[in-house]
């Protein structure tokens, strides 16, 4: 038993070490590094730049610049470094903030106006026993596009041509990062606008058909007409709501119920609906109106063109960290190339819903979360997709 314990301990220790090394490499914590001293110096520079980059990618903000400024000062080797946006001091690192901090904006002023680097001298501040007093400042503009949006200033006791060059270079590198930040922000805005544009496309056919169906009951069955009108009001309120881009599966199902009641008014007993929903996934957050278009599609393309009874099956299954949702009809089906057209959102395709939902799912969750369509002419259609139970930023 003693031997066995020893051997097992050894095995577990070995496994733990292997897992540890794997994990460290995985998360880039440990990598053997080699190289000459020149290599080392450029590695050092690149490393400092990489430390500053993520904070700058949030744009020219107080929080971001105050995180980035320390590596920038190390990079420049100056007594102090300041970043302003022309109106106020955003971040200061190093000596002399008490004396010079309030003047930083004034130092930046002419650079803001001219857009060219400048050296100011005769500051004469700071009698720190350890360091030399600050006498000069090299100020360089931070540019986005063609606009000067701020300044980077290096405070030193005496400037050299090398330092001026370095400040220039660092300034243009920071400008590059800030432009990327702007690009990020633009991209986010575009994606948001895209989702806003894509969301909630209530189909005009549906409005038209519903109102016609309701109208047909007004004389013969006024109570039914009233009920349907209320359902219609509820459904449109859901589709036109303003707050939030996300909903829960439970709410989406409720809306689909209203939608189907209206469709039943038209199809009568021809339309059967079967649901199998795992109660565990009712709370899953999903993009607003991404299931209803699939149901509408199943009703329209599965049943409208077909004689006799039709069944739409809605499934929502629990699959660990995911929820698997599918909508199936036993209608006329489609040719695969029609599906491809619909998914790519080509104009002229009357499966507007599919392409729209597919695109929104991919934008929000990532490309592996698009729609899967299984169909063939005469064999019905099954559209399914996956929703992760948790995704940062997705919350009903």
């Amino acid at each position, binding site marked *: 038993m003693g031997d066995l314990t020893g051997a097992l301990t050894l095995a577990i220790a070995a496994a733990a070490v292997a897992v540890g090394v794997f994990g460290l490499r995985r998360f880039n914590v440990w990598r053997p590094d080699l190289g000459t001293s020149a290599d080392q110096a450029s590695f050092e520079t690149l490393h400092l730049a990489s430390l500053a980059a993520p904070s700058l990618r949030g744009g020219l903000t107080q929080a971001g610049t105050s995180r980035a400024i320390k590596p920038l000062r190390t990079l420049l080797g100056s007594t102090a470094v300041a970043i302003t946006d022309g109106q106020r001091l955003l971040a200061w690192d190093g000596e002399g903030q008490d004396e010079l901090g309030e003047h930083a904006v004034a130092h930046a002023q002419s650079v803001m106006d001219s857009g060219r680097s400048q050296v100011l001298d005769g500051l004469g501040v700071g009698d720190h026993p350890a360091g030399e007093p600050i006498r000069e400042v090299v100020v360089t503009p931070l540019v986005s596009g063609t606009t000067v949006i701020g300044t980077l200033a290096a405070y030193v006791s005496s400037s050299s041509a090398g330092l001026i060059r370095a400040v220039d270079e660092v300034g243009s590198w920071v400008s590059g990062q800030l432009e990327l930040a702007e690009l990020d922000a633009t991209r986010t805005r575009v994606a948001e606008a895209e989702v806003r544009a894509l969301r909630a496309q209530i189909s005009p056919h549906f409005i038209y058909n519903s109102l016609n169906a309701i109208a047909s009951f007004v004389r013969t069955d006024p109570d039914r007409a009233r009920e349907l009108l209320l359902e219609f009001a509820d459904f449109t309120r859901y589709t036109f709501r303003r707050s*939030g881009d996300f909903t829960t599966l439970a709410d989406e199902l409720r809306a689909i119920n209203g939608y189907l009641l209206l469709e039943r008014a038209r199809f009568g007993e021809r339309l059967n609906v079967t649901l199998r929903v795992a109660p565990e996934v009712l709370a899953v957050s999903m993009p607003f109106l991404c299931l209803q278009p699939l149901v509408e599609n199943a009703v329209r393309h599965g049943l409208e063109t077909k004689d006799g009874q039709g069944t739409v099956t809605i499934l929502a299954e629990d699959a660990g960290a995911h929820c698997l949702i599918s909508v199936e009809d036993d209608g006329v089906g489609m040719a695969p190339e029609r599906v491809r057209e619909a998914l790519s959102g080509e104009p002229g395709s009357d499966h507007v819903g599919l392409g729209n939902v597919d695109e929104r799912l991919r934008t929000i969750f990532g490309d592996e979360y698009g729609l899967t369509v299984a169909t063939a002419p005469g064999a019905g259609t099954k559209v399914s997709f996956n929703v992760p139970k948790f995704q940062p930023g997705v919350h009903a």
Partner: protein
Amino acid sequence: MSQGYGIAAISIVVALTAIIGAFGLRISRTTSDFYVASRTVSPLWNASAIGGEYLSAASFLGVAGLILAYGADLLWLPVGFTGGYLIMLVLVAAPLRRSGAYTLPDFTELRLNSTRLRALASVLVVGICWLYLMPQFQGAGLTLRTVTGAPLWAGELIVAIVVVTTVAAGGMRSITFVQAFQYWLKVTAILLPAAFLFLSWHADDSPSLTRDSLPRFAVATTVTAPEDLQIRVTQPVVPRVTGVVDGLRYVGGVAPLAPGPHTVAEGTRLDFPAGAPVPVEENLPAATDEAWAQPLSGGREHSLYTTYSLIIATMLGTMGLPHILVRFYTNPDGGAARRTTLAVLALLGVFYLGPTLFGALGRIYAPDLLLTGRVDSVVLELPSRMVGGTGGDLLSALVTAGAFAAFLSTAAGLTMSAAAVLSQDVFRSRDVRTFQLAAVPATLIPFLFALIAGGIAVGDAVSLAFAVAASTFCPLLVLGVWWRRLSTVGAAAGMVVGGASAGAAVLATIIGGPYQGWTGALLAQPAAITVPAAFLVMIGVSLLTPRHVPSNIHRIMVRLHVPEGLGQEAGDFSR
């Protein structure tokens, strides 16, 4: 106990689990009615499911064994197991549900806005799952040994294989109603026999549990040493012996055992007369029944410290158990999460009456387990000893089935959690095959742990997992929910300090333990040191690094704390 019934019970449970795992139990809620389809799970069902997943080998076997050996102090174990839900109810249940997080790494990423911290949380989740799986395997091993006499590793291997197969085959795990059924099966399997035992004790003129004497054999008893035993005699006793005691061979002769340590060779038969005081295995305390029933005198070293440490570990560790949190996702909102937690408190409270009764009655009716040191099997042994006949056999079979169901359901839930994290965060794949493969390391490591850690009682082993959970996720969750100045650096530092210190103590106990004296107490019950340490580090480092507080903290706090349905602006997908 009759072998036949026991083996039949185990086979049925294993077969059912395998079948459900392989084919998936589709309790199909097929309907054409939207109101039926979108009906949420009621808090009581949800609470039952949590109970089903939570009640493990430690609850089913370990609690009774530890109470039998150590008495009143260990009542804190079931109290802590249950009380953890009270802490959860008050501090984290509703905000956690409102966060929308499905797993602990999800919450970490959401609250601190950092994928690196998510990675750290994932590592801890896997570690806690492994530690918690170990006692499940141990419990399975000793159940099979009690029933069939098979060696410990055989049962451990069987459960490991069944669990890997079930999980890899897809698993029934997340179906609430199956888990809820598991709870009711376990409650029946422990409370029904307990009721019979209680009646039997009553019919026996209710012998006192608090006599001022050592435990005594109620009737003439034959004990066969299952392995080489080191025992301690406090009052002289004269058994008839067939075999080897203290190196001397006896063939049915009397062997007077004087107070002091003695050795009994494997296979030796000891015949004790009725009323003889019971010698105890050397690691267990030889306390009088009166002392056993008193707090802090039951005979563990440094019992005041270990008791507090145990309370801290169990009460604060519950919220950090990976397989429990995922159940809360089924609640529709924060309010339902609170109601569910409240129901869990009641359900667990009812369940733990059973093991406590088993432990106490074992003191009278199965004191020889103190001699062999196999106190963990008291739940399995007691029904056949006290009731006897076919009735006793059937009750034993019921208990055995319940115990096996307990290991399988808890072990499968834990393996699922560990495999999910391994496949998603370590192997970086959403592929089903990766998930299935990840089930193998998820099970293999704790199986090896279980082989090594033979000497640790099941109930103690599970408290190790609680200690690690309490030292890492408890500070993260409590501070994350209630303190807006928590920074990413602070959270990471606290989790690393808590996880490393508690983890080191736990591994030392598993691999080298049990230790004696203060070392042993600190290593086996590290929570009283490591939990405050983790809290202090997390708070201190956060205060020192105010720049690393997530920038969207106010938005997150609103999401965690504002009740649903107030129409607050919901999150949008970009930040």
